[in-house]
């Protein structure tokens, strides 16, 4: 009779197997961990064992490279539990080959897999998985979450290979970037739908053309701070030319540039972390361009004035302006692509460090009010949804907020508190109104007068803030009219169907 014997008789066993959810085959060498901190690896048959557990509830999680990471599963282990099965969904991959007009492989091409949005559109500046083609022109992008993707080939053919001899100067061949399917723009690109565990194929053909060198000097560089430059022909061209910049003297060189009209952009952060920016337009036609000079100066601050109209006191309304760059900036400078500022009605809103480019703009009101008009320079933001400024003089935003907004209140039969409602304007020129269903009832306020489409979902899959998504939703749902200063009552019999 020992204390040990008594204790060990209380311990329980948890064991099981980890299987591939697509093939059903065991997954070996997967890490299985418990919320208690216990950890083990599966054996060759995919089996795992935790032999000495205290009875209780555990969160069990299995992980392995090449599989989607999943939420832990709660398992109640009062007595020994065997034969539990944990499913792991395999990731997907894309492979393909890049060839030139003579069907010869092209080495050193940058391949990006860009996640297409919920409705198929592609958001610029979204993170991408990349690969580079090898000597046979082949590439493979592994470990992709199943979903819809665009595949883009860009950059240059690699520098030629040398051993022991001097390298000739510069790469003279280049190609215009292209999407899988042959399109030059994201809009016309073919969409690859990746299923779990599959290996999709994306062969791409490029046309080699003479490449030129653009060189010059950047003035006002801050010594010792990283800087980046981008030569792009359009808003959707990230300008992946091979470039070099000497921070000591500002000399730069960009190789493999095709004939065309370009904007050269240069960024740097100053010692006090402000954004320095400079740009220049240039044309390349048949030969190298030297002597380009770009001067860095503080990036502009965008200012906006908010005027309040209407019967109620709007001085407590808070206005938030967020901007999302539609111009593709290089990945090293992603943080410039999202800018935001906020202020109370009647105040001036300031958005600092805005790099010139094309932006989508969203204006949100916290409180019972709506945006009745918004302009940037000559652009009507409610009609256009986005604006462009290409020079240092940023346009001033003029925003009019009205206090006599409408309200929609209603009930959803058979809905619990998890559901959300979305009121999508039919004009699809502003963000949807949102509300939460509590005890079967909801209320959405701060709505602009007009026609709306109403949805109620258990848990929405997308964020539905892009113009494409909003305009698609404006085609369906339940029609609701909203009038200035009034409450519209609605009754929904059931939850809406989620868009695919």
């Amino acid at each position, binding site marked *: 009779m020992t204390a040990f014997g008594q204790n060990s008789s209380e311990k329980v066993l948890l064991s099981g197997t980890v299987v591939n959810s697509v093939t059903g085959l065991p997954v070996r*060498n997967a890490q299985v961990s418990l919320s208690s901190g216990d950890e083990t690896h599966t054996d060759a048959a995919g089996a795992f064992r935790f032999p000495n557990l205290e009875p209780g509830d555990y969160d069990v999680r299995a992980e392995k490279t090449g599989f989607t990471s999943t939420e832990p599963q709660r398992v109640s282990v009062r007595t020994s539990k065997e034969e539990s099965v944990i499913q792991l969904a395999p990731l997907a991959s894309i492979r393909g080959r890049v060839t030139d007009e003579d069907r010869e492989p092209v*080495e050193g091409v940058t391949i990006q897999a860009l996640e297409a949005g919920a409705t198929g559109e592609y958001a610029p500046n979204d993170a991408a998985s990349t690969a580079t083609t090898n000597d046979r022109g082949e590439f493979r992008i*592994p470990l992709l979450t199943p979903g819809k993707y665009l595949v883009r080939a860009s950059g240059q053919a690699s520098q*030629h290979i*040398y*051993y*022991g001899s001097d390298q*000739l100067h510069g790469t003279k061949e280049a190609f215009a970037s292209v999407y899988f399917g042959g399109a030059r723009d994201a809009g016309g690109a073919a969409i690859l739908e990746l299923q779990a565990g599959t290996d999709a194929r994306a062969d791409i053909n490029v046309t080699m053309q003479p490449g030129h060198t653009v060189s010059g000097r950047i003035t006002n560089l801050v010594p010792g701070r990283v800087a980046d430059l981008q030569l792009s022909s359009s808003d959707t061209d990230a300008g992946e030319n091979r470039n070099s910049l000497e921070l000591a003297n500002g000399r730069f060189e960009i190789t493999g540039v095709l004939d065309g009209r370009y904007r050269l952009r240069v960024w740097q952060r100053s010692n006090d972390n402000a954004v320095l920016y400079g740009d220049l337009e240039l044309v390349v036609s048949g030969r190298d361009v030297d002597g380009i000079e770009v001067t860095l100066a503080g990036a502009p601050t965008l200012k906006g004035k908010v005027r309040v109209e209407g019967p109620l006191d709007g001085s407590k309304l808070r206005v938030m302006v967020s901007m999302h760059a539609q111009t593709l900036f290089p990945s090293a400078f992603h943080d410039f692509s999202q800018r935001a500022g906020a202020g109370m009605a009647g105040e001036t809103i300031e958005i600092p460090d805005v790099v010139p480019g094309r932006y989508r703009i969203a204006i949100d009101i916290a409180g019972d009010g709506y945006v009745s008009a918004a302009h940037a320079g000559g652009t009507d933001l409610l009609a256009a949804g986005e604006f462009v400024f290409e020079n240092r003089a940023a346009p001033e935003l003029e925003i009019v907020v009205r206090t006599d907004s409408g309200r929609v209140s209603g009930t959803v039969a058979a809905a619990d508190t998890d559901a959300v409602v979305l009121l999508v304007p039919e004009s699809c020129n502003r963000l949807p109104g949102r509300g939460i269903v509590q005890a079967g009832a909801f209320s959405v306020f701060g709505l602009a007068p007009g026609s709306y489409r109403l949805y109620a979902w258990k848990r929405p899959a997308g964020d539905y803030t892009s113009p494409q998504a909003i305009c698609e939703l404006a085609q369906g749902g339940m029609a609701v009219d909203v009038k200035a200063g009034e409450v519209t009552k609605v009754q929904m019999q059931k939850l809406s169907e989620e868009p695919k």
Partner: protein
Amino acid sequence: MKIAAWNWIAALAAAVAVVPAWAGPPAEQAKSGFRISGTMIDGVTGQALAKARVTVTPDDGSAPAIETTTGSDGRFLFPGLPAGSWRLQAERRGYIGQAYGQRSILTSGAISIITGSDGSSENIRFPLNPPAAIKGTVVDENGEPIINAFVQLLMGVSGARKEYRVGKTVATDDMGEYRIPDVPAGKYYLFVIVPMPSGDSGYAPQYYPGAADPRSANSIALKAGEEFTADFRLPRTRGVSLEVEGLSGIPGGADSELLVLLTPGPENSVVSVSTLGPGLGRTFSHLVPGRYKLVVADLKGTFATAKWIDLGHEGGTVALPFDNPPDITAKLHVVNGDASLLPSAMLGFTTFGDPGQSIRPISPDGTARFPALASGRYGVALVSQDLYIRSMTARNARVADGMIELPESGPVELEITVAADGGRVKGKVRSGDKPVSGDMVVLMPHEEPAAETDYHCYISDSDGTYDFRGVKPGSYLLFATPNQDLEYGDRAALTNYLASAKKVRVEPKGMVELQIEPSGR
């Protein structure tokens, strides 16, 4: 053209502005209207290659490169050239960029094209070689892929002697697969390490094919355009640990400290098995017991110190700093020549197979300092067209045959006597009436012992010319051979050629002109 004893010195010499000591008579230079022409072909299939970029550059660097592109028949033509000596180079996507005559890609040697003397600059067949590739998988003993295993290619670099160094390193992907593309034809070794194993055991490094010991490794002979498959199965090992303690003395402290662990590889090479950068701790784990060289270096490359360690089955600890690391001051004196030539030259220390080598400028007072060399055996070389090393003495280091053995600690003072009274040996390689281009012409010291830098080699020009300048006065043997892979700095490898070699006596500032026939054809 003349090739240097060490490949890396040749590359540096090309980067240092070298004023030609000799140029043809002005009347000859003024004449123009000569042509370099030929056909670019695939080195394997022999088919004409279109779209290749071809350039010619004067060997003395006196004019920029002239460029053309081959047409669909592979032809190239450079008309209207002055008489002279030219470097012909070509590059094309899918091929290895190459100078004409580089039969062994890993040598710096090339055949100079001579315009003006005969027709040897026309109708040249220029083969461009497609690269080979090595691919394979790295798995554990269960056949599971090992992700992020480093596959290292040890490539033999030809020079006076062949040496192996890590040429390329690639990592395995999520399927344990790797591919090393763009490898020139030649002899290689493959070596796999897993730098950051998961779990509490690691993997023992392995040479192809499945060899734990470098002496059991097989070399791989790659042909141009070949795709070679080399798979690895690595057993798990717990191994032993090496702890590094104490302060390295590196300016900037642990934040700029790099610890590199090297171990002897095949054929006198040295391979890297592990690297600890800032923030990665100071314990090397999962090591196989054996002999290691620990190099402690500054990330900026301004400081390095090293020590050989024998690691037993219990693991071990090594304390920093290594006492008083070697600090070398070299003082150069010029005899029989102009001391102002010194600043145009550079002094280099080379080690066989070890990447820890260095080249430094010489200041006007004739000194050169090497504050960051690890202990070991180095060759001492002077990069100069006009000067050669006549003799060397050292304090706190052993010197013999142009080599120096640096100690693990203490200051080293090196006295080097250099001379500018070198002689010249030139002539043509001819077989009967025909000039022989692309032969290896070797000028070797008649007597032993001799420094490796006193063995000279020239790849005969398109008209058969060879030309050695700045040769240390003394007795030599001279011969020519088509075997370009010859390790001409290895006296034992030259035995077969001695019988047919010609004796040459080089006097100070003297000139010898000799026509030779190739041997061993």
